[in-house]
């Protein structure tokens, strides 16, 4: 059984939500915090609801709506989301008030919207969708778990289209606290320099990307989701190579057939060594693209990478801003996305052109 990408939607620090094509120019940024470029949500969401919704809910709903529109699907057979942090803004609001007001005179809205399944629940509510609804919250595997659940359900043969996606927001509190863990660059950095950096740390990002996955081609299908796997805490770089080789073999794909490798390179010197090792040992001479200089680093950033991989297959072109090295072949057939989050959560996603 093939699993087709029927539609995609993406809200990110780039103008990806303006349409489903790759933005012509990179939105420049400076400093260690990238903010999502937010579309006019009124096209999808009631104005009264918009006012009460936190950014992660709005970004998630917008990405979901964009993907359903592209797929031509009104009501999917399942809604499955992944979010590492959940609804951080509402969590922070309720937590702060609870502490500052000594647990008195609190109101329910922020608490209600703080649960991790809020986005998936809101999408179901807006669509009137009674189907299967699930939310994965496992750090750097949140998006991959949502994809895997979707794949397994599609294989059961009773569903034709599933909405799967991931969303994470950055708030002032979360950026402050994550900065204290020494995750981000201290020196000024731009999108052109980030992936060439040799120092410690990366830049913080956020966003939402959704995919309608189905067992049949949709009117706008350009690629198949051929394979997905996750590797938790691999022992070292030497362990990752055989894992990638066996992953490709399991999906009948030779190394030669991979037209492009997209890596999760984020400018953190130690973390990027994993990508360099794989590029040099397994994919020497292959073209390599990156994406975290466009969306920043966050636990579900691989969803942006998959959105970009699908666009590249659809347009048969790698945007100049994304290409890091090598020459792209005329026909881009298979794209391998290798990502890791903080060297702990590694994932492989294989896409094939239709």
């Amino acid at each position, binding site marked *: 059984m093939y699993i087709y990408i029927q539609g995609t939607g993406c809200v990110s620090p780039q103008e990806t939500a303006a349409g489903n094509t790759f933005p012509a120019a990179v939105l420049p940024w400076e400093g260690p915090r990238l903010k999502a470029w937010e579309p006019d949500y009124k096209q999808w969401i009631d104005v009264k609801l918009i006012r009460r919704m936190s950014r992660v809910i709005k970004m998630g709903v917008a990405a979901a709506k964009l993907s359903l529109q592209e797929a031509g699907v009104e009501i999917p057979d399942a809604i499955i989301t992944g979010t590492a942090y*959940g609804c951080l803004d509402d969590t922070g609001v*309720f937590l702060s008030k609870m502490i500052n007001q000594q*647990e008195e005179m609190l109101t329910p809205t922020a*608490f209600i919207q703080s649960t991790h*399944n809020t986005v998936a629940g809101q999408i179901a509510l807006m669509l009137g969708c*009674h189907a299967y609804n699930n939310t994965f*919250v496992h*750090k750097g595997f949140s998006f991959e778990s949502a994809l895997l659940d979707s794949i397994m359900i599609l294989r059961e043969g009773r569903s034709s289209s599933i909405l799967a996606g991931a969303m994470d927001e950055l708030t002032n509190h979360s950026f402050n606290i994550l900065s204290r*863990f020494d995750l981000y660059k201290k020196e000024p950095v731009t999108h052109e320099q980030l992936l060439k950096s040799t120092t410690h740390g990366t830049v913080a990002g956020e966003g939402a990307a959704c995919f309608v996955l189905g067992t049949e081609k949709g009117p706008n299908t350009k690629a198949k989701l051929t394979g997905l796997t996750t590797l938790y805490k691999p022992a070292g770089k030497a362990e990752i190579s055989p894992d990638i080789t066996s992953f490709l073999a399991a999906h009948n794909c030779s190394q030669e057939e991979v037209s492009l490798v997209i890596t999760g390179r984020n400018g953190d010197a130690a973390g990027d060594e994993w990508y360099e090792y794989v590029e040099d040992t397994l994919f020497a001479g292959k073209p390599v693209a990156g994406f975290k200089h466009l969306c920043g680093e966050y636990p579900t950033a691989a969803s942006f990478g998959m959105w970009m991989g699908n666009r590249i297959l659809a347009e048969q072109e790698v945007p100049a801003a994304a290409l890091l090295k090598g020459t792209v072949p005329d026909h881009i057939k298979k794209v391998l996305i290798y990502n890791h989050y903080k060297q702990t959560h590694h994932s492989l996603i294989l896409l094939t052109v239709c």
Partner: protein
Amino acid sequence: MHSDVWIAGGGVICGIGNNLSECLTAFERMEPGMAHMEYLHSVHRHTFPVVEVKVSNAILAGWTGMSEKISRTALLSSVAVQEAWKSTGLGDISQYRVGFVSANTVGGMDKTEDFFADYLLDPSKGHLSQVVHHECGAITELVADAMGIRHHISTISTACSSSANALMYGSRLIRNNMVDVVIAGGTDALTRFTLNGFNTLMILDPAACRPFDDTRAGLNLGEGAGYVVLISDALAAELPSSHQPWCRLSGYANANDAYHQTASSPDGTGNFLAMQGALEMSGIRPEDIDYINLHGTGTQNNDSAEGSAIARLFAPHYPPVSSTKSFTGHTLGASGGIEAVFSAWAVKEGVIYPNANFSKQMKDVPFSPVTKFSAGNQLQHVMSNSFGFGGNCSSLVFSKNEQS
């Protein structure tokens, strides 16, 4: 794809017992666990009873070999996971391909709220060690690492139905031959965050909760963890006669109510669809269900909606039903796991659990819950319901080892 998934064992810790055996004793003696808060520090201490695990973090840490400084949510999880694994007799965990799918709703919030008090005064203050395990997934990884599990780990958070969905996902991992064994369930410790959150919704009963009773006035929050060990057909066939599986996880379904972010639809549409879907997957009819472990939180809204959905699906043959939350309180992300252990054990030993504090039948529901403990019943199929915020509704069906 059509192979069975078996329950090889289970473990539980909650406010009525630190293991399954202690919980069964509490049911038999009709001893619910509601009490004043002892371990959670809240200004509402004397207002709302809770169902705490009556053990300090230091003692839980001693039992599990973990640090007493980590989140209570991880400590509770570890206790129940260890009991679940031991109960299977599967031995050395490293010889299997093992998955760990654990659910929770607020991760390490019990520590985060302490951190935040310092942090709000000065953003450079607050011990980072208190917030490093804030994420839901961090709790799962603490336990996975302690158990030596790395083939597949994941965390699910769908509010009060979280751990029922962990069983479904775990079951799929086995059916897809990704792993041989999955420890699936959930955990949640009491936090001020959830206590105050539920208080703003005005659904906390200042007295002991009375699920499916006409006088019910809300829920009591509890804490705990519960896990079952799911195994494949192939592994079940190899088990020695001394350690036969408890039962099969024969059916499950997840549906969304799509009515309101927190409230259930009056007719319990999502509840109905989840129960109907689970029966369909099990290949059985409503009259084949011999006992329902209700979601039964004790709120006006939940019990009416769940009752309506049961009436619509089961009338006129109502099986015995009860809400074990009348003993354990509502343990949120852990409840589906804890109740899965109770339900799987119910099939194995023919146990029907009592519903405490029941006195007056609900006007809008044509049946009432069982009020006495009994064992040795012939139970072929047991249903367990878990419904939550976000419209998330899930039902599981546990069935006797013989194919029906």
